[in-house]
């Protein structure tokens, strides 16, 4: 390509440096805005206020982060455990697909915030309804991406396995599922971000722990800086989980990087 900006697009250092520069610039703007416009801290706290708030009670905030993380991961893993077999069944049988698909679409169409109170009624105030909420939020993209990926297996590969007298389960596990892995990972990356959102939504309603609970209770005491600290922690968690998946994908699917 052109030589212009080549260091910025190719170097590894730049790859790490550029997002950091972007982040620092954004935080700088935020800080400048609070100073220049002298915004009240309870409306928009400055970055320094937020850091201060965090440093006042790091143990507490990290503990709540741990709760949210646990719910997020629990629901996410459960969604994989439930979603992938459902996708397998959908791909396997057209009848089942017609039977289940509208149901899945319907469940996915429900605004999840609307059922958060119901989950509390059914399952109480503990962690379980939160995990279920995360599961509900993120299993749809997992099912869709897995099913689409398996269906997009090239016919010549399917025909090859058939010509080798492969059993149905060999066709699905040795070929289709592996072939779908890059697409499954795309679905997982969508799902993990949704999972974080799902856990927060669930914690808004009937929770005694978690970052969502911290945010909703700080709203009642107008402790905006605390809410911002919790939001920042959520974002960091979300980003780390996302890049965790990216790294896992690179490690597990070296063959998929080059065939794009």
């Amino acid at each position, binding site marked *: 390509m052109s030589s212009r900006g080549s260091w910025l697009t190719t170097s590894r250092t730049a790859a790490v440096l550029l997002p950091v520069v972007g982040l620092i610039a954004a935080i700088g703007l935020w800080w400048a805005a609070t100073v220049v416009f002298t915004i009240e801290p309870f409306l928009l706290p400055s970055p320094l206020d937020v850091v201060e708030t965090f440093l006042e009670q790091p143990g507490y905030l990290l503990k709540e982060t741990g709760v949210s993380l646990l719910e997020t991961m629990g629901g996410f893993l459960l969604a994989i455990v439930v979603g992938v077999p459902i996708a397998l069944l959908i791909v396997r049988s057209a009848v089942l697909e017609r039977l289940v698909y509208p149901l899945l679409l319907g469940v996915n169409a429900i605004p999840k915030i609307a059922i958060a109170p119901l989950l509390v009624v059914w399952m109480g105030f503990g962690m379980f309804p939160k995990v279920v909420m995360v599961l509900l939020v993120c299993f749809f993209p997992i099912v869709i991406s897995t099913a689409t990926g398996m269906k997009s297996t090239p016919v010549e590969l399917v025909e*090859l396995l058939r010509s*080798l007298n*492969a059993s149905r389960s060999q066709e699905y596990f040795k070929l289709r599922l*592996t072939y779908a892995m890059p697409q499954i990972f795309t679905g997982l990356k969508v799902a993990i971000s949704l999972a974080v959102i799902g856990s927060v939504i669930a914690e808004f309603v009937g929770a005694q722990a978690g970052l969502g609970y911290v945010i909703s209770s700080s709203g009642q005491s107008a402790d905006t800086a605390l809410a911002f600290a919790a939001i920042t922690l959520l974002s960091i968690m979300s980003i780390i989980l996302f890049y965790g998946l990216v790294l896992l994908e690179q490690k597990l699917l070296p063959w998929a990087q080059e065939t794009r």
Partner: protein
Amino acid sequence: MIRLDGVGQVFEGRGGRVQALDGIDLHVRQNEFVTLIGRSGCGKSTLLRLIAGLLPPTYGGVEVAGEPVTGPRRDVSFMFQRPALLPWRSVISNVMLPVEISGGDSERSKSQYRDRAHELLDLVGLKGFERRLPHELSGGMQQRVSLCRSLIRSPKVMLMDEPFSALDALTRTELSAELQRIQMELATTIVFVTHSIEEAVVLADRVAVLTPRPGRLREIVEIDIPRPRSLGQNAHLADVAQISGHLHGLLAERPHDQVDVPEARR
């Protein structure tokens, strides 16, 4: 080795009935190399899939090695136009796939097959590439891997559906020379579909010409040019050209004005 008696294939599709093949009688002897030519859509791939047991014929009988074909057989291998390699498997484990999927013969152990795989890769000039992934190879190299895979269980019958059509002329020449050598060495029976008349003539003991709608065998032409033959430089250019001309005439015929060209026939 392969016997087709009055075979016909009808597809009932959304667009209605398609009579893909009708009244095919073909007997391929052991160690014979038969090439199959015909216009696009005249049923060549369908014919191969019938022999491979991937598709049951609508009517008529298909036999391989004296037994009616009921499904894919271990001693029959199929090679496609595209390499059809699993992208996450290394070259060597792609070659080993057939053994892994449905096992080998009982008298050969897995490690013997592995040695055989190395031998085959060596034979087609891919020594040192065993651990590579398919995307690291060129299209021609991938097709060679595919060839090795179809040879790994020493099949009695090889069915090849335009295996070299995506390759450049030089690679194609090399691989078809390779294929002839392998065939002579292993006494394999081969049915080979191609769009290239010259390739059909150079490789074959007999060329079967299929005419479309419905697919029928128009003629089977014996090629008695001595082997080894080669595409490109060739001591029998005149013979090849003459037969090619005849075949070309057969393919260009419309179903209505079928006239024989006896002076060109051998």
